[in-house]
């Protein structure tokens, strides 16, 4: 994470929707990795930030005559090129929006607004980063690890970056662990790949190993985030949780995406999606 980014983990978005041509759609186990060339957007989104995505054509007419609104996705990779920034999104097809996106073909247009929201803040020197991703929640963890590896500077051979602990349902999903450049440890619910454990079990071991001296960055389903929150609270280590909630706009216009915090409802698209664990009474209500 650069010094500039650390001050404010939010890169501004252009105030309009734009269309980025899709350059690749790869199947990664149970997920799809969609890459598009964004010619007009900023080259430096911050890990944890997200984009509102829609197919430029044929957005609608799926199950229940949906989708209609765009969908929120953390970017998983951002690769500057001379023609713009290549953005990659990792997604799981679970409904009409993600199903349409998963069918995008190279050359089709991806309509996007972003980067949006505020991303992960840097860890204090004394508490080095420890990354945790569950399922599709590995997307922001991927770009965060990439960024942290980059921040270690060039000429750091064998640099494996901060450890990412990744949990998946099964081996099919765990294939996505192969996308990570840095050190990873994998757990699956059914033991078909990596350790037969919940990822929070791996996290508990690590936190105990370092005596709680870590900053935890986590993204995953609410029960996982809640387990992370409880674990970090009891070990008094700071945790930043990338959360999700149903969004219509992504830029604070609709007041639809609120989650309850200790200081009342906050718009997750504006004040999140990354929240400090100690802002929350529970991570289950997102």
């Amino acid at each position, binding site marked *: 994470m650069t010094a500039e980014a650390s001050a404010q983990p*939010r890169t*501004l*978005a*252009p*105030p*309009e*929707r734009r269309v980025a041509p899709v350059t690749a759609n790869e199947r990664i186990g149970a997920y799809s990795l969609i890459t598009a060339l964004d010619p007009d957007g900023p080259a430096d989104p911050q890990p944890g930030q997200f984009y509102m995505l*829609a197919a430029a054509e044929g957005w*609608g007419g799926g199950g*229940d*005559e*949906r*989708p*209609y*609104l*765009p969908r929120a996705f953390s970017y998983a990779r951002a690769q500057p090129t001379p023609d713009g920034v290549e953005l990659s999104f990792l997604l799981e097809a679970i409904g009409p929006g993600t199903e349409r996106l998963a069918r995008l073909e190279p050359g089709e247009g991806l309509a996007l*607004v972003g980067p*949006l929201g505020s991303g992960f803040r840097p860890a204090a020197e004394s508490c080095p980063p420890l990354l945790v991703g569950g399922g599709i929640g590995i997307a922001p963890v991927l770009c965060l690890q990439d960024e942290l590896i980059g921040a270690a500077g060039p000429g750091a051979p064998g640099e494996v970056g901060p450890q990412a602990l990744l949990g998946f349902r099964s081996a099919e999903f765990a294939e996505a662990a192969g996308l990570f450049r840095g050190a990873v440890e994998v757990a699956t619910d059914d033991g078909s790949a990596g350790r037969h454990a919940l990822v929070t079990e791996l996290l508990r071991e690590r936190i105990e190993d370092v005596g709680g001296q870590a900053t935890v960055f986590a993204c995953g389903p609410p029960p996982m985030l809640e387990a992370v929150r409880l674990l970090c609270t009891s070990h008094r280590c700071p945790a930043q949780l990338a959360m999700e*909630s*149903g*969004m*219509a*706009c*992504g*830029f*604070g*216009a*609709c*007041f*639809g*995406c*609120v*989650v*309850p915090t200790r200081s*009342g*409802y906050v*718009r997750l698209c*504006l004040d999140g999606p990354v929240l400090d664990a100690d802002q929350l009474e529970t991570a289950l*209500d997102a």
Partner: protein
Amino acid sequence: MTNLCGIELAGPVLNGSGTFDTIAARRAFGDALLERFPFDAFVSKTITLEPREGNPPPRLWETPAGLINSIGLPNKGLEGFLQTDLPQLAELPVPLVVSVMGFSRDELATLVERVGPRDEVAMIELNVSCPNVETGLIMGADPSETARAVERLRPLCEKPLVVKLTPNATDPAAVASAAEDAGADAVSLINTLKGMALDPATRRPWLGGGSGGVSGPAVRAIALEQVQAVSKRVAIPVIGMGGISSGRHAADFLAVGAHCVAVGTESFRDPAAGRRIGAELQALRELAPNRGRALPVFP
């Protein structure tokens, strides 16, 4: 140029109240938002006398070509609005309309008396889609309730008063006409249509608020009919909205008698929707307005 109740606008495209938060949007988009501002006048989210935190989530449900929202009017309340929001809204490059809602005529009176005199404010919009706690009636569904509110408020404020009509009424044109007779300077419509959805897993209401309001393209045909019926009945300007997502839709609303249009849900898909729609409308107007009956389908 468009003149709305004596206020000069660069064009006829407003936002629907509660569908754009310029203060939040500046955090996301920076000052580029002001340089390429999407609307010709800005309507604030509805404020109430007391602060409200809004409804419990979930607050949104996507429908076929539409959206149900159950936001519940979260806002800082009158004092918070005047102190915190109004100075920031004053920085916008376009005139400001402040939307207010009260649960009694007294509440409304206080809001209008406090907001009206502020220089930053060009116009006040009365959101009457709420029950009057004194009578139990939805103010905006009943012509005489609406008339009584407007009669009370009219003398309290020198700025133009716009009445935002609810579509959940037997005869919105009768309400509009009553508002006009009571001294309203303009009417706007439609607000959202009552709607609900169930959680597919539990078959209990999905929305934290139980039910909500439907907006978006799904309601456009309904909105167009109501805007037409209201425009036929009143002489004051009509601000038409409901599912507008292109210049052609805007042109339709103007053709049935609206003086201005407002864009709501479409801004969620594209923050620049208002600007795009304004440009498309302009392009349409530069074409010959009457090209005769559509050509038959066969070549």
